[in-house]
């Protein structure tokens, strides 16, 4: 049989039909963000607003108390080694003492709605991050 491009199928050296093509064009292929579970929580990260900064402390008390928030995690909550990496596991899961790039994760909020997580994350971040003079 011929396709629109005139290529006959089923022979050596031909263009094979992509097996996940059908589900993908139907919107039925599950990407990781499509995963769903009843009662699942939503996460939002608190990220460093500074490219190079000293972290004097992270105040999570208000975020933890907020309605709908189930957990707030920092480097203190990371069991075992607090860094990860493929060849050199030296990258902090959550930054502590020092933030090394703008956007580096410092804490994570888990809540029952993404907007709740986001608001809690915004509340807990700015007040307690003091930046040192830039080392760049």
């Amino acid at each position, binding site marked *: 049989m011929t396709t629109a491009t005139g290529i006959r199928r089923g022979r050596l050296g031909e263009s094979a039909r992509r097996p996940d093509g059908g589900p993908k064009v139907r919107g039925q292929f599950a990407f990781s963000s499509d995963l769903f579970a009843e009662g699942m929580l939503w996460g939002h990260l608190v990220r460093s607003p500074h490219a190079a900064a000293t972290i004097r402390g992270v105040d999570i008390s208000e975020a933890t108390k907020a309605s709908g928030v189930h957990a707030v995690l920092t480097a203190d909550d990371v069991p075992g080694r607090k860094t990860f990496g493929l060849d050199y596991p030296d990258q902090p899961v959550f930054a502590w003492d020092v933030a090394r790039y703008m956007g580096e994760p410092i804490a994570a909020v888990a809540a029952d709605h993404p*907007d709740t997580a*986001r*608001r809690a994350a*915004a509340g807990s971040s700015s007040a307690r991050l003091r930046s040192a003079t830039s080392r760049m």
Partner: protein
Amino acid sequence: MTVYLPASLEEAFEAFELAPDADLLAGGTDYMVEVNSGHRHPSKVVALRKVGELAGWRREGDEVVLGAGLTYTDLMQPDLSELLPGLAQAARTVGSPQIRNVGTLGGNLGTASPAGDTLPVLSALDAVVVLGRRGSVRRLTMHEFVLGPKATALEPGELIVEVRVPAALGSQEFLKVGTRNAMVIAVVNVALVVDWVGRSVRCALGSVGPVPIRAGEAEAFAESRIDWAAGGLTGGAADLAEFAGLVRAAARPIDDHRSTAEYRTHAVGVCAHRALDRVLARAGSWTLGHAS
């Protein structure tokens, strides 16, 4: 805690009386970006999607009255683009088809970003913005309406109802420069209208100041140098360069994350130069009395 879904202007006014502090929502292409990023927390919203009176337009003599709910796609349709070619050109530079299908003229005005693409065109056309609440309307010029970056004269309880512009005025050009050639907020945008009948030149600049700027000196210069009978500039290329220089002098740009004041000044001159050059190239057909 409510979304109001008025189906008519009357109902919209009523909703606004019930909730004068409600957010107005048309296309949502500015509003929803703020909501999605957590920078805005809606509490009461009056959604204007269903208000038919806002989405139409009509001809009134030598004016076109544009409903504030007209989308960029609407502005690009043949019948409107023939009457308002500069506005159609500007609309086509906005976003993507998805954005153009929902973003509105009223929204562009209401947001009043210094980079708003319809704003220089409306400024060059001396548009009149009609604001309404139940039982009363106000008419403001662009200068009176757009007060500063993201600041307008719109009062609580008012909405932008329509915009009045001259129909088929002269030869129009709109140019825009961005950090890429599509789906981008303007680094510089320029609208030019040359009215061969009225013998006037209007040149409005966007993204080079807190509000759209009419380059008055450049306009006056071009008006004095255009050969209104035969077309072209009396001083040729030198006049064109002088025009561009006067446009540059009128700009008051800033440095920001998109561009520098220096580049913006340069780019606005290039756009003005190109715009006038294109209009003059078409001029032959104008002096013969045909629409270009």
